[in-house]
């Protein structure tokens, strides 16, 4: 390996650039963002700043987020069928995606109990904003999502006919603020900090 003078750890400069060597760290590089391992050394793979704590590289440019297994995502319901609801993921964690990604919520993954009695039509409707957790990648290009936790489910629903705001009234119902009509949903229990793991 050609060792150039530039190969020394760059602590003085405010930025690191792809290929720059980082100070050694016991953490496995797989758990850190913006770094990779070559020949036992850790190197930066993007341009950014080295964070002191874990010596990960915090990107200067907000990076494209790929939802990973276990991430909490926000998605909009596109269509609902008997077996699954098609959604588009619009943000991962606190990061808003530039482009939406496809996601799917299967009937079995809507809630944790009484799975066989779930009716998707009574859980989601198009245009609902749903908080969900990523299970992984399905066969297609869609991420498989789940709402089978009490904190997950519809967090925002509107009445389709006039767009009026609906308010959650129970774990399974939303009520229209204008007409007072009730509709069935898988309602999320909104807590401020949901752990992402």
């Amino acid at each position: 390996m050609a060792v150039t003078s530039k190969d020394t750890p760059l602590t003085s400069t405010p930025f690191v650039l792809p290929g720059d060597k980082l100070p050694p760290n016991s953490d496995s590089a797989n758990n850190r963002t913006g770094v990779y391992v070559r020949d036992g050394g850790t190197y930066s793979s993007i341009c950014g700043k080295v964070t002191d704590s874990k010596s990960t590289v915090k990107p200067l440019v907000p990076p494209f987020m790929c939802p990973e297994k276990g991430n909490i995502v926000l998605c909009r319901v596109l269509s609902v069928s008997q077996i699954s609801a098609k959604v588009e993921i619009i943000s991962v964690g606190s990061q808003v995606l530039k482009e939406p990604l496809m996601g799917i919520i299967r009937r079995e993954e809507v809630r944790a109990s009484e799975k066989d009695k779930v009716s998707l039509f009574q859980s989601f409707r198009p245009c609902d904003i749903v908080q969900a957790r990523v299970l992984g990648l399905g066969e297609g290009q869609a991420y498989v999502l789940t709402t089978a936790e009490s904190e997950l489910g519809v967090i925002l629903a509107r009445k389709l006919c006039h767009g009026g705001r609906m308010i959650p009234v129970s774990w399974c119902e939303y009520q229209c603020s204008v007409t007072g009509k009730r509709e069935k949903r898988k309602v999320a229990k909104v807590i401020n900090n949901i752990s992402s793991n």
Partner: protein
Amino acid sequence: MADFEYLSPEGLRSDGRRPQELRVLSCNISHCLQADGSAYLQQGNTRVIATVYGPHDVSRRSEAQHDKAFINCQFSMATFSTSERKKRPTGDKSCLETSLALKKTFEAAILTDTYPHSKIDIFVQILQSDGSDKAVSINAITMALIDAGIPMKDYVCATSVTLINDTPIVDLNYFEERGPGPELIVGTLPKSGKIVFLQVNSRLHIDNMEKVLKEGMNGNQRVHTILDTLIKKHLEKSILT
């Protein structure tokens, strides 16, 4: 003239450079706001614009790869880029070939396994051609990728080299490219010295290969230093504003 003097006995090339000197290199990063990353790179009179989109969702199912991102690269030359104005159809063979070569190059440099099931689009266009088109394209794409924040192992730096009277000559302009010597274009990851792109036009004898390659790698180190400073300057500026 048949025997044009490409290198004078005083050691100066036809444009006044010494054999191992690069042309003046300047770069404008992030000029295109729609794209995720973009760079306009000027190496002497060769001007290249590179834009990067992504990573984003694959547009066709067939592009999706379960373990890594799909890289799509399109190389093209503007109609006004060469001395003669020429319409260039998109399916131009040489452009397709270059596209493919660039794609393979950056597949080797980008940490593609970070983004499975997604796609990275790279568009590169020659605005003015004065030799070393491919090498300059590679440098420009590197800048655009860094701008887009796509994780890479290292910069990819490339230079073209030829051999005139047994002297390796680096960063060819159009005249030198058209000259009698074989042209070697080498792209490396400058930190590790790994070769990710290598192209030889016309025959180059194996005895000369080492010499030429070495000079190309040295050239890449110099390109790297320049690109590094340019990027840092750009970052400092963008942070201030």
